[in-house]
């Protein structure tokens, strides 16, 4: 019987998660509260929010668990700087400043912030955190875990079987042989921000042809046993993420894309880059599939769970389910490093004798909204706020008329996808509304796909292969088979569908849309502008409403208009 706080911090996407007596009580990413996208700093506000949600104070915690080994990590970084001698001088200096500045003292800082003795603060291994986040939240047992990311302490990829004390490593691959770093290099090459633009590469890939696949095969070798090796001169030395690609890649693919030039997919120049994206995506999918087969061979398990940043690649996940050897595939929705916080807490709980309860997992683990306070702030902003008896029916009517609706209900989502708690919605059958949403409201590139949300009961009629264990949290894509989804279908005929169970945040709204207006789907995207974190609290929603001007905002039963 223990209260355990898990923490990820200091590289990207800091977060805190609280597990009490094996039950998952709260999880919150720092960026949502600090309003800094991918905020890596010590998640003080997220810690406080988790404690408040659990009704605890810092000293009540039995254990605080950091999601990786800070000393091993430091060692790898400094050794890497030396290995790049003499170019690594600047990096060495910066790394030492960061490390001596705060990273190395993270455990002490956590003890101080939480008000617990230093002896109660511990750490676990990076990939073990990822593995636990997937194994202990999966809707099924008998699984093997595959964790794939840029790099943890030294590992980039690992295969785990569940054990009584937490995940047990079967085997691993080490940095610099890393699919995360491969995809980061392509992301940087295409002029996107690393650790953030990976999603754009995947969206862009659908517009291109994989005609550089052979060229990329000379940079990344996929072996028969599922392992892969990266050729050093095709990749940067990872001292500078914005130049994660190396000279050999530039020689093979031409100059990297100027990040400032607006995208024009009709133009030859940008079709070239779409082809690069398509080739990289193709390679990544084959590599992940190879890893999944390796995981199956080594474990004999019937099902697979995935975590680590690469597991956010929903096209690769779709292929693993369709072509791989597993009956079921599940991805932890916060597969990136934020999710490590929850994995660390779950591991800590096991170490203290608790058995994690996967049934206690829901992605709605973050902060609540206060409609009363939000209404008062809205009034002071000169906005119209009314409490409505049936917000779902009310919003459905607005959606049917072609409105763009900001939708804030219940506790905030865990992970990068909006899942109906902090969402931006419009009709799914109208491509012009999608473009309005993309350009005017969100301010993002034209090739970014949107997702439809449908009730689970309709999924099979509208999509091939849905529902499955990934569709509730939008970690896969499915081929569109039904009508009325023009605005939510990507150029390649797929959609990142969310299936909504009875009782889900979007369920009443979808029910009203169908009952009153004959619509079975809604187009669904995250409630944020390009480059900003997802909205968390009522004031964040008002801030978005005032600046980006959707037609109407619902905060629980409060309807805000101008």
């Amino acid at each position: 019987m223990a209260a355990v706080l898990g923490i990820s911090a200091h590289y990207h996407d800091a977060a805190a998660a609280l597990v009490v007596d094996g039950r998952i009580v709260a999880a919150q990413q720092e960026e949502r509260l600090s309003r800094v996208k991918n905020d890596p700093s010590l998640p003080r506000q997220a810690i406080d929010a988790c404690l408040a949600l659990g009704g605890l104070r810092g000293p009540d915690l039995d254990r605080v668990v950091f999601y990786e080994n800070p000393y091993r990590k430091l060692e790898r970084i400094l050794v890497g700087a030396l290995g790049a001698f003499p170019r690594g001088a600047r990096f060495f200096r910066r790394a030492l400043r960061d490390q001596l500045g705060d990273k190395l003292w993270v455990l002490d800082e956590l003890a101080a912030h939480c008000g617990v003795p230093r002896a109660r603060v511990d750490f676990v291994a990076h990939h073990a955190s990822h593995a636990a986040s997937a194994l202990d939240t999966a809707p099924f047992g008998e699984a093997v875990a595959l964790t794939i990311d840029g790099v943890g302490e030294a590992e980039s990829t690992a295969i785990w079987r569940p054990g009584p004390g937490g995940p047990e490593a079967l085997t691993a691959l080490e940095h610099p042989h890393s699919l995360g770093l491969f995809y980061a290099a392509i992301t940087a090459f295409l002029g996107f921000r690393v650790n953030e633009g990976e999603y754009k590469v995947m969206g862009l890939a659908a517009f291109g042809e994989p005609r550089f696949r052979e060229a990329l095969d000379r940079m990344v070798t996929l072996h028969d046993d599922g392992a892969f090796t990266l050729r050093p001169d095709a990749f940067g030395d990872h001292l500078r993420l914005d130049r994660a690609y190396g000279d050999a890649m530039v020689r093979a693919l031409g100059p990297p894309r100027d990040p400032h030039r607006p995208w024009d997919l009709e133009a030859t120049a940008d079709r070239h880059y779409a082809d690069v994206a398509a080739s990289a995506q193709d390679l990544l999918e084959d590599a992940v599939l190879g890893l999944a087969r390796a995981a199956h061979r080594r474990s004999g398990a019937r099902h697979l769970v995935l975590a680590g940043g690469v597991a956010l690649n929903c096209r690769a996940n779709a292929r693993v389910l369709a072509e791989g050897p597993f009956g079921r595939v599940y991805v932890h929705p916060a597969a990136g490093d934020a999710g490590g916080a929850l994995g660390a807490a779950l591991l800590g709980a096991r170490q203290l004798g608790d058995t994690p309860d996967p049934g206690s997992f829901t992605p709605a683990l973050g902060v609540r909204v206060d409609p009363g306070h939000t209404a008062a702030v809205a009034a002071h902003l000169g906005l119209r706020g009314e409490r409505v008896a049936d917000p779902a029916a009310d919003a459905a009517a607005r959606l049917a008329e072609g409105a763009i609706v900001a939708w804030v209900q219940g506790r905030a989502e865990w992970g990068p996808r909006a899942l109906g708690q902090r969402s931006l919605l419009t009709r799914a059958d109208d491509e012009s509304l999608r473009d309005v949403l993309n350009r005017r409201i969100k301010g993002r590139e034209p090739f970014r796909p949107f997702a439809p949300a449908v009730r689970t009961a309709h999924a099979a009629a509208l999509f091939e292969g849905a529902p499955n264990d990934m569709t509730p949290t939008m970690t896969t894509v499915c081929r569109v088979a039904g009508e009325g989804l023009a605005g939510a279908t990507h150029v390649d005929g797929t959609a990142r569908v969310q299936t909504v169970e009875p009782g889900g945040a979007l369920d009443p709204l979808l029910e009203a849309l169908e009952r009153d207006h004959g619509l079975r789907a809604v187009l669904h995207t995250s409630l944020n502008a390009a480059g900003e974190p997802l909205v968390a609290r009522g004031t964040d929603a008002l801030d978005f409403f005032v600046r980006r001007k959707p037609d109407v905002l619902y905060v629980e039963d409060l309807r805000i208009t101008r």
Partner: protein
Amino acid sequence: MRALADFVYTLSWRLPGRTWRRLLAFAEAEAESALELRCAAALTTDAARAARYLEHAADEARHAQILLRRAELAKQAPSMLPRRGHAHLFARLGEAAFLAFVHLGERRGRRQFEAHVRFFEKRDPALANALRSILADERRHEAYTAELLTAVGEPRATRRARWLDRGMRWRRAGGALTEPLFALTMGLLYLLSAPLAALVRRGPAGWR
């Protein structure tokens, strides 16, 4: 003395590449205060003040965009705001001292912008105009924070804010002084560790 100050000021804009770098730094500062204000809006329990902070944040975000555009014009190349964190002043200071701190910053900002407008009036009227539109907002910010500060009424808040403000500026200046020393020491350490580089192996390929 006045002449020297003027000379240094002129030089601060005149050195090659200085104009766009300074404008970009201003844009960054504006974006940072927009973040501070969004957090303040979420943290204050008073709905009226939350609304003021949100409006203020929207102003600062707009200023950041204006200054970014101006920096791009001066640089004759597109640019991007680096993504940086902020100091979480509201959470650290509490509302009264936060307000006092913001008020001090607005006052300093207003004075600096007045000087910039004067400087560019003849040299670059378009830029002067853009700065003048920002200046009007800054005057408003200075005034409303003073009002709220009186309303929140915590006499020692201003003193605390002033100390923090000074502390932050000293630390910045101190950083600028110690930075070369740190760089030199670390450079030497790196050189001394150089022989170790020969021992560094590339990570093993294949399954462990």
